[in-house]
């Protein structure tokens, strides 16, 4: 039984080290992405002006576009999964397809300003999303729009860097939780290992 215990302990230790290494890698990626984001913001600030890229630009009403699904597993570890609010645009598209007609040309110019936080959306379907979006959910704006209609590429780059950071944060949070759980288990097993020895003494 002792050999069994020791093998388990070794396995746990190796797992722990692997997890730490994975955390280290993800952290480095996170840190460099954040730094890239800051550089892009600074460049955008340089081209747009100091006051144009600051907390003053924040909207007075915001709705989150990213959510994190949390779940607690058996061992007490928490798992985090990042989810971006992109599905709603798809639903709206289906609802409003019949509505549009003559309005299309008039609204065409305003499409991009009220687009939801989804860059991949095709231009043609935008007018349809637009009318519904305007009437029911005017808050669903791409935060990029707070800084103006024509924002420099740098700001968009900053946004995509931070979007990746957010996804990575969820992964790191899960990993941190797993690491703490592994550590607890290791400690418990170490105690188990030392206690029977003391009993023999």
């Amino acid at each position: 039984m002792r050999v069994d215990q020791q093998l388990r302990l070794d396995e746990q230790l190796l797992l722990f080290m692997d997890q730490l290494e994975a955390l280290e890698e993800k952290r480095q990626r996170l840190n460099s992405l954040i730094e890239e984001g800051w550089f892009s913001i600074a460049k955008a600030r340089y081209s747009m002006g100091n006051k144009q890229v600051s907390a003053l630009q924040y909207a007075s009403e915001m709705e989150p576009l990213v959510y994190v699904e949390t779940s607690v597993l058996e061992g007490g570890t928490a798992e985090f999964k990042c989810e971006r609010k992109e599905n709603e645009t798809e639903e709206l598209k289906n609802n409003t397809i019949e509505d549009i007609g003559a309005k299309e040309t008039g609204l065409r110019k305003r499409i991009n300003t009220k687009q939801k936080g989804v860059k991949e959306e095709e231009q043609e379907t935008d007018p349809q999303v637009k009318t519904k979006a305007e009437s029911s959910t005017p808050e669903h704006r791409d935060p990029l729009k707070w800084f103006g209609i024509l924002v420099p590429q740098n700001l968009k780059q900053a946004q995509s860097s931070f979007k990746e950071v957010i996804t990575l944060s969820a992964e790191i949070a899960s990993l941190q939780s797993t690491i703490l759980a592994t550590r607890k288990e290791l400690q418990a097993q170490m105690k188990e290992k030392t206690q029977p020895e003391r009993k023999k003494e």
Partner: protein
Amino acid sequence: MPGRGKLIAVIGDEDTCTGFLLGGIGELNKNRKPNFLVVEKDTSIAEIEETFKSFLARSDIGIILINQFIAEMIRHAIDAHMESIPAVLEIPSKEHPYDASKDSILRRAKGMFSAEDFR
């Protein structure tokens, strides 16, 4: 929105908050308190701690991102937080690069080993 998952909160300097808000995590409306705090030179430690504790108390926040230098100011509050949700993630700031030896989570993970254990 209820039942749609939790929010990500951020406590950081202006650029950090701007970045994350650009990423789309911000919530601000008349009824509810914001899920972010922009820390400036004149922000008091008490205010930071109060905001941090209020984020912990909220059931709709899953992750709290905080600049490490701010985390240092309220280290005692962060160390006292033992639950797995919300998770606290320390991120670097422009003037203070990330230091793994200061991270609460890593300190807890490191503290377990001693020479005795390997006999």
